[in-house]
């Protein structure tokens, strides 16, 4: 039953992704509702899986990277629903859905050893995990929206016909900026809660371990970008490189690195 659910979610997300790609490539606007409908079914099943793991896993619940990635893919789909309904931004699906699908796939196939539960027993552990995961999801969304912006803006500059049914450049830019701001705030909370845990349990703020360094580097990249955007007007395609670096750093940090004190 559990395996059927896991495979079912993957199959549904795969179908939705393929249909959204067909919709985008062949301008079949009528498929938008189909994508939405398929995703709702997948999302409900995915939510059921998440609750199942919350019920069966021990504290702190996201007991390894796989569950973290599962949560990220769930949140990305939720973000898609929000963007579709609030901003009529179904056109983000060809970017967002493949990322959500790959993240889900990684969560299924990339099993790693679970945390023993012998670590810190504090609510801050959950705060730390959830805020970092949410931040990463938002940065991924920001990347997708930024990519959409670059494509549309490039076509406008080159005097080519614009891709239909995309929000305006201004809306794309605003969504990206707000997403990055929110992601940065959540990353700050995640780093702060991690440092607090280090202090409470290990009497040091920093372990100089890969994840901490990676998270701080990403935090710095995003802060520089957001400040420069606010003060110096780093708008449009100029504001893409730093956030992209930040995303790569934090993505690799979550995927590849591991806290030293857990080994």
């Amino acid at each position, binding site marked *: 039953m559990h395996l059927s659910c896991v495979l079912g979610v993957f199959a549904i997300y795969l179908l939705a992704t393929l249909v959204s790609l067909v919709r985008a490539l062949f301008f079949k606007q*009528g498929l938008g509702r189909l994508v939405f409908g398929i995703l709702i079914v997948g999302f409900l099943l995915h939510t059921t899986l998440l609750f199942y793991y919350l019920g069966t896993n021990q504290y702190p619940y996201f007991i390894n990277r796989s569950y973290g990635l599962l949560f990220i893919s769930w949140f990305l789909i939720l973000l898609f629903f929000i963007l579709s309904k609030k901003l009529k931004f179904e056109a983000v699906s060809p970017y967002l859905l493949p990322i959500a699908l790959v993240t889900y796939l990684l969560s299924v196939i990339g099993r790693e050893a679970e945390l023993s539960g012998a670590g810190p027993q504090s609510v801050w552990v959950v705060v730390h995990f959830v805020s970092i995961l949410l931040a990463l999801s938002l940065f991924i969304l920001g990347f997708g929206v930024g990519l959409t912006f670059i494509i549309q803006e490039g076509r406008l*500059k080159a*005097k080519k016909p614009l891709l*239909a049914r995309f*929000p*305006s*450049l201004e809306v794309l830019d605003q969504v990206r900026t707000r997403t990055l701001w929110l992601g940065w705030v959540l990353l700050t909370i995640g780093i702060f809660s991690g440092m607090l845990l280090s202090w409470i349990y290990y009497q040091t703020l920093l372990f100089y371990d890969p994840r901490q360094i990676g998270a701080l580097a990403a935090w710095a990249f995003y802060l520089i970008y957001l400040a420069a955007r606010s003060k110096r*007007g780093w708008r449009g395609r*100029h504001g893409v490189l730093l956030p992209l670096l930040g995303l790569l750093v934090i993505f690799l940090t979550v995927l590849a690195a591991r806290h030293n004190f857990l080994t």
Partner: protein
Amino acid sequence: MPLIVTGLSHKTAPLEIRERFSAASSLVSEVLPKLLLDADLDEAFLISTCNRTELYLVCRNKERGEILANEFFDSLEKISSEKRRHLFYQLVDGAALGHLFRVTASLDAMVVGETQVTGQVKDAYERAKGAGTVGPYLNKLVQRSLEVAKRIRTETEISSHPVSVSSAAVNLAENIFGDLKERTVLIVGSGEMAQLAAQHFGDKIKSLTITNRTESKAREMAASFNAGLPAEALAKAGVLPYEKFQESLGSYDVIVTSTSAGIILTPDLVEAGMSLRKNHPLFLIDIAVPRNIDPAVNKIPNVYLYDIDDLQGVVQAGMAERAKEAKKAEAIIFDATVSFEKEMDQRKAAPTITELSRKFEGIREAEVAKVLRCLPQLGDRERKELEACTKRIVSKILHEPIVGLKEEEGSSYAETVRRLFKLGTEN
């Protein structure tokens, strides 16, 4: 009941002919009800716009309907039958249905995809309804045509692409800024193209400013623009002294240039303006020949420069897209026409189906009553079983005739059924 449409449009008649047959809305309430006094006519509906005048008639006799339609147009302006053959078209039944769907969805319009005609059809329908000349058939038909038009607008991109230079400029501005309600526009120059651009931005924007080397011309243009605005509009046009416009670039989101002064905006000036704007996007529309804005300005980040050729390119691309979308729309209209005809045929069959069912039910009840009189000893269970059995027999016998009545086109099948089972006369 045949549906006939008779009319002329921009495709068949030039303006000087069309305007003679243009029917004022008062005509609807005066003339159409008189048409319906004819016993062969059930419903009537008139569409009269600058590009077409069409009379839709639901009649019992096709030939009579054609005569009445011709008489109607003769009452507006008498022309020879030879001329009428060239200028007018007359379509019947499915072709008439499809035509109304195409007209309402703007596929037959001068500019395919323009949305005004849908509103005009709706207004014409309301007038006919007010005059009491619309009955159940036209009621259903016009509602369906409005639904089909809406479906085409939703499922295709037929109305999405601009078809004039000015609308292309507004469309591009919307692609950059989204809602233009908070945007400010500066028009440099006061020529005809500049005025068209100003009109197209109209009351969609927050403010419009006009500047010209001759300030009196700028004031004239602003006054003319303001006169055309609705009273509640916020975007009244103002005037900026020409000598201040280059230093004020940072204050405007959209700048339209249309002067004969040659290059008035260089990359340096625009970069200075962008610095004041903190790199908020700037849309420059250069509709002057020779150009007013150095093409190198387009390389500046967050600046989007379109000249007249670029806008024409957008328009041409838009027309080509609309033509592509029109094909998709035609497919939707074909399906809608077939579906509507089938629905009407089924409705026509409804009285026959009801009569047939009633007749057989009457026979069944009478025979069951006879059997029950002969067999009074039957218990409740047996009586119920007898009822159910006879109902099943009747249902099975009538299944094929009823399916045939629903699915067969035309009234000949229904007539045969009525004759076969000696039902009352067909309505």
